[in-house]
């Protein structure tokens, strides 16, 4: 997990990473946790569900129960229209932010 990152920053970034992951295809809890753990954004599934709750409470995602292929019935998360809008805005802001932060950081080196 990215340990040096402040909890607020990590939390905020993880929310948009979840939106990014489910915008390409619906995903279930463990699938999301596995992706996020693999890149070091969360350390356990315990972090995932509070984030999903925040996204649900502000109407950025919705949950549907379905069976994909021969697998069991699972809860799949997909972004709502407002979630998609948030994600698109974040993509623009993130590109701008990393560019601006990069200018500052490069100066320090």
């Amino acid at each position: 997990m990215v340990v040096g990152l402040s909890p607020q920053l990590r939390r905020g970034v993880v929310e948009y990473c979840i939106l990014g992951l489910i915008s390409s295809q619906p995903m279930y809890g463990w699938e999301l946790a596995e992706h996020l753990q693999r890149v070091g954004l969360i350390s356990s599934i315990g972090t995932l569900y509070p984030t999903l709750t925040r996204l649900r409470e502000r109407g950025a995602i919705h949950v549907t129960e379905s069976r994909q292929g021969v697998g069991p019935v699972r809860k799949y998360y997909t972004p709502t229209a407002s979630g998609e809008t948030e994600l698109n805005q974040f993509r623009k802001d993130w590109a701008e932010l990393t560019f601006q932060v990069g200018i500052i950081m490069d100066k320090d080196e």
Partner: protein
Amino acid sequence: MNDSQSASPVSAYLRSLDNELARVSEPVASQVRDGVAEELRSLSPEVALERMKQLGDPAHIAYEAQRDSADLNNSPAAAGRSRAYVIVTAVLVAFGGLVVPIVGWIAGIILLWLGKAWKPFQKIVATAVPLLVIVVGGVWGWFMPTTSTANQSPSSRGSGFDAPQMEDFTIANALPALTWWHVVLIVLAVNVVIAIWILRTGLKHSSPARE
């Protein structure tokens, strides 16, 4: 579960997770529990054991869920799971109907459904049981004639000794008399029991008091 062989380790893991999640507020606790159970139950026994290792210590999962849901306890939605909210809801469910007949109880049930401290099945049980008692009481009362032939004086049937008539041996006469007052008292008692139950379950998953 795909195989009964893995029932024990998975059940033990979920039990341990349940115990640890007791300190995590709703709805996060239920979501973590359901998500983990959904995953483990979809796997073969061998893979489930491997997955439990990947998931890690239930205490760590609960710790992270609690830490990361701290801000949820301060969100507007947390108002629906505060201690005060849970207590007011329980009091209205128990005694609201006494203060303002029917409307007081309905207000308690509305708070219950809007609240975040209870699981859907708890809301359904708390709403349905008193209604069921009313329906059963109503049906019972309907089949209980207020003046059955058994209660009629002999003079009303004719003079002299009256042998029991066939209509005296009905289900209605076998049941104790139940008036609407009895039903109301039973519903009140049921509501008090339900209120104690939702108070206990609600406080277990309520948010800490806001500073």
